[in-house]
């Protein structure tokens, strides 16, 4: 049986609000953003004045002026996760990392984070962008229990705002930066017990969401939105059927892509507000870190006996779910 022993998160300080985006004169308005995607603010590693003046037309300049990197955010998140798990970095035997906006293609992001934390075990990247939480938990479930060390550090980090073209009226409104980290063990018990994991993909549609290595983020918004809502609903339905979920007690966390999409999903499954945890309206879409950040934000007030559904979708196109039980 697998457990999550500690979780942490980190976000940059700079806030991009809708008024700022409206003042960029790209054709969007604060009202449109709230109505269409339900996001009010998002956090960015980019200086606000830089965005205002340069619109991040050249990601190389964005990288140079960025106030923190995906690695910085990941290390900060990991330190919180380690502390909450009651272990030190030297106890970690393996790191797996997901990062869709690495500053370096080599060494891998996982190895760079391991170097920063002083972790000497196995370190590498297991990558599928936004559904990272489900991918990592499903990936670890593949291993024979004795093939994994006592503590595995999972990290998902991204600074997608550094890959946004702020002349685009939509993309700038979506993305926020952030990192999540969580400690997993199949040998030690912890706060969250993993009851079920899934991960699946339809790579024939992988062109719908891209981040050009030397350029910007692009997506087929409508196609991705339809896929996201449909697939998340399917994931939840499957768990409802297999585990008799009770939305009076159980919790849902979706991929934090946009608030209106999440509302469609919870309306479809009749999930009440108090059972739906989210942060997209203040933090934006934090890519593969987003759902894990929501969970990490609630770490200190998890209630024993409750089950938590994390159902996530994203680039690839890929999707997955994790069902957890609070111990």
């Amino acid at each position, binding site marked *: 049986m697998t457990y999550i022993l500690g979780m942490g998160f980190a976000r940059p300080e700079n806030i991009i609000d809708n008024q700022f985006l409206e003042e960029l004169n790209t054709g969007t308005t604060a009202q449109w953003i709230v109505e269409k995607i339900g996001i009010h603010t998002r956090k960015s590693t980019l200086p606000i004045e830089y965005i205002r003046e340069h619109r991040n037309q050249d990601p190389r300049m964005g*990288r140079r002026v960025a106030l923190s990197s995906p690695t910085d955010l990941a290390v900060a998140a990991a330190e919180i996760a380690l502390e909450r798990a009651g272990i030190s970095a030297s106890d970690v035997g393996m790191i797996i990392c997901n990062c869709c906006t690495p500053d370096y293609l080599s060494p891998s992001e996982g190895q760079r984070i391991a170097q920063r934390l002083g972790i000497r075990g196995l370190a590498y990247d*297991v990558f599928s962008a936004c559904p990272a939480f489900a991918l990592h938990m499903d990936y670890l479930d593949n291993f024979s229990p004795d093939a994994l060390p006592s503590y595995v550090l999972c990290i998902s980090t991204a600074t997608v705002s550094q890959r946004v073209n702020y002349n685009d009226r939509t993309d700038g409104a979506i993305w926020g930066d952030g990192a999540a980290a969580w400690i997993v063990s199949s040998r030690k018990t912890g706060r969250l017990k993993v009851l079920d994991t899934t991960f699946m993909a339809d*790579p*024939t549609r*992988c062109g719908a969401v891209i981040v050009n290595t030397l350029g910007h983020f692009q997506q087929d918004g409508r196609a991705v939105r339809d896929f996201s809502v449909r697939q998340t609903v399917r994931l939840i339905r499957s768990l409802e059927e297999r585990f008799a979920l009770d939305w009076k007690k159980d919790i849902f966390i979706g991929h934090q892509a946009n608030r209106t999409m999440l509302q469609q999903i919870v309306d479809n499954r009749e999930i009440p507000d108090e059972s739906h945890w989210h942060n997209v309206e203040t933090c934006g879409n934090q890519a593969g870190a987003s759902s894990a950040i929501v969970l990490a934000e609630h770490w200190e007030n998890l209630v024993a006996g409750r089950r938590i559904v994390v159902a996530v979708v994203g680039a*690839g196109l890929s999707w997955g779910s994790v069902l957890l039980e609070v111990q």
Partner: protein
Amino acid sequence: MLFVLGAGSFAPGEQLTDELLRELGVSPDGPVNLQRPSTLNLELLRASRNSDLLQTVKAASPSCTDMGEQAARQAVERAGLTVDQIGLVIGDCATPVEVTPSEGQRIAGRLGLKVPAYDIYTTQGICPAHLSILSTWRKERLPRYTLCVSTNAPTQRIDYSHGSEGWMFADGASACVVSAEDMRGLELVWSRFSVDTARTSTFELDTLGHIRSHGIDAAAVRAQAGELFSALADDVRISEDLRKSMFFWSLADLPLQQDILQAAGGPLGEVINSHAEIGNMLGTSSLYQLAAHWGSFEDKQMIGVLVAEGSINYGGAVFRVRRGA
């Protein structure tokens, strides 16, 4: 137990010859007379030396995904399978054109597959990293057939305007189909995948920039090779048979490699160094030459791959040939 049922490789047609590199002002930093297959547009290379990466990537052909697809199809064909029998695709690419989606997803998409696909990225590539990892999975979690693909185009990320940076690098792809149920081909009898984050990587690649090589740390190579040779010697199931083996160990410093092998007293049989023939394809190299030799192995022969370059990742894999491969 894990079996490699088929292995494939692909290299682009253009080559960066010694003459061309000397013409560009690149001085030798390794073996000479290398083939160095490359995706680069040579006319643009002569004019720009890769100073404008956007221009370089736009003009390059084939792409990493193109190469990966070709290697994958060859691996599937050699395994005697059809693409629709693949249940999982794992990718590896240090030079992707898009950092999202993963290279594994792009290649799976090309193959028309609707199966789980993602990247396990270590810079070490398929062998031993992917194979070592898959060999520790619970059998019921592994699909009947898994496709592993590594594809790299480091020549697109070299600044050819100075020094010796570009002397060793080449582009290509390798792939293999593995199974824990279909027991034929190459049986994986030993593997080790190690990461030493106390070391410096032999090269660094800025996502938005060029490759920066840090050279080979001879002491680190000796230490890693020594550790792997000891581990191989300690495994009584295979140690005797290794003297009749064929090993693939790519290292840019040929004299260092020969010195290490001599000092070790020949724990391995024939050692083939792909860097010395075709250049450094990053993580693709480890399986590339094995795939290129597919069909020439003898039944029950031991085949090995070593990755010991003094970098962060090192390891190895040993296979026993079953029913000819």
